[in-house]
């Protein structure tokens, strides 16, 4: 049985390795991101040379200046890829981590913007990731913009969203038109079910592909060496998805 999280990790890994995108030599992964972390480890365990900076690794944390060092690294242009989520994400790839309703989230308050208002501009590419795929999350227009999906000409920006991956599908993003295109639907979904679950308008090919399953080799890596690397930081995730518990 392939777990949904395993499929998502494999889909993210394929995006990381996309030969059409700028190279991902150094990827940073933020807090509470077990699926993106699994995708990065999968890429690495498949033998691709990539440096991973996992911000919430307790032992051997690579930073000696805390999170400032991550932002400085990114400012220097040394981080090639970052993952961002959003309480709301809209059709122009704007993300809202502040909250719904009036500023600063008088409806439902989200945790806050973290480094998104910087990272989204300063990494050559960003993969947007949110498991919940619903009209509540994927809205026509976010109530508050933590970080904009595209910028006016003249505003310094190294990159934009490459794609948006959810629990139902995978969208590609085109910064020139500031629109998403449905790239694939996960097994069990189709063009109509995705359209119904998505609050924003997007483009769609005549034939919607199915998001591929992880290969047996990928599954073996995920359940073995990838899980080994993640046990300390994400014990609950590893227990739930890989049925593995950390040694007491």
């Amino acid at each position, binding site marked *: 049985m392939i777990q949904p999280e395993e499929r998502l990790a494999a889909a993210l890994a394929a995006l990381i390795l996309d030969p059409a995108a700028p190279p991902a030599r150094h990827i940073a992964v933020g*807090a*509470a991101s077990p699926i993106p972390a699994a995708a990065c480890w999968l890429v690495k365990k498949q033998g691709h040379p990539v440096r991973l900076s996992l*911000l*919430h690794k*307790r*032992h051997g*944390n690579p*930073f*000696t*200046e*805390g*999170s*400032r*060092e991550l*932002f400085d690294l990114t*400012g220097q242009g040394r981080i090639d890829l970052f993952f961002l989520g959003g309480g709301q994400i809209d059709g122009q790839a704007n993300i809202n*981590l*502040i909250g719904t309703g009036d*500023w*600063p*989230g*008088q409806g439902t*308050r*989200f*945790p*806050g*913007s*973290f*480094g*998104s*208002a*910087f*990272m*989204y*501009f*300063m990494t050559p590419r960003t993969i947007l990731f949110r498991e919940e795929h619903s009209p509540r999350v994927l809205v026509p227009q976010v109530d*508050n*913009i*933590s*970080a*904009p999906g595209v*910028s*006016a000409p*003249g*505003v*310094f920006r190294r990159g934009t969203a490459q794609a948006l991956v959810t629990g139902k599908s995978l969208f590609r993003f085109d910064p020139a038109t500031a629109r998403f295109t449905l790239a694939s639907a996960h097994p069990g979904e189709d063009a109509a079910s995705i359209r119904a679950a998505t609050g924003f308008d997007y483009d769609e090919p005549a034939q919607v592909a199915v998001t591929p399953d992880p290969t047996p080799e990928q599954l073996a890596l995920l359940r073995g060496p990838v899980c080994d690397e993640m046990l300390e930081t994400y014990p*609950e995730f590893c227990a739930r998805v890989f049925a593995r518990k950390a040694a007491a």
Partner: protein
Amino acid sequence: MTTAPPAWPSVEELAARIPDGAMVALPPDNSLPSVALAKALIRRGARGLRLLGVPVSGFATDLLIGAGCVAELQTSAISLGEAGFAPRFTAALKEGRIRVQDATCPAIHTMLQAAEKGVPFMPLRGLIGSDILANRPDWRVIDNPFAESGDPIVLLPALSPDFCLFHAVMADREGNVWLGRRRECATLAHASREALVTVERFFDGNLLEDERTAPGTISATYIGGVALAGRGAQPVALLDEYGFDAGYVAAYARAAKTQEGFDNWLAVELGGSEKAA
């Protein structure tokens, strides 16, 4: 070889130095906040504090908000990590009991770096087009004077907290404190008017003399006071000394869903100590 520490103040005495209304900076839950000092502030009934998350806020901030100590919070995010949203923060925001100033992580670092350097501002990329900027009248956009054509860039003002509070592993007789790789607290100490620090233990020697301890040491120059507080970061992790107590924080998150639940949790937590009015 452990000897008795010098005549340090108690955690309560340290907390008493922080007047109501002070701007108090706290590192996040992965970077050594002094939970011991936060609890002491609650015990002394502090009011009107203006908290700064450097660059985000966690457990100690939610605790202080729940106890009614906080008037303002500037931060880039607040959560209890795996235990979810910060319940007392969310309630206080809804009820209009605290003023919230949203930032983004590198902006908070940058404002502190400007204070560290003694300059009135520092630039930062990004931010343009974010509603964070739109809601920060204290931040400015200028045209980069070094660019050939138009290149808007944000300038952030220097920010000097009145106090910063963190928990380190050890301190010596001079008042130097050692916190290993968590050197971001040094910038915070440099930028703050006074750093108040709790430590696990006394170090009988000079931390800056030995090449092995010096690089993880913050010089006493920046330290306003040190108090002994065993497991003073708990439930937060302290380097390789002890881990994050996820069960404790999850129990807190469940209890603090309501103010009544929070008050009961706090009464048990503060134990025999007199509770703030």
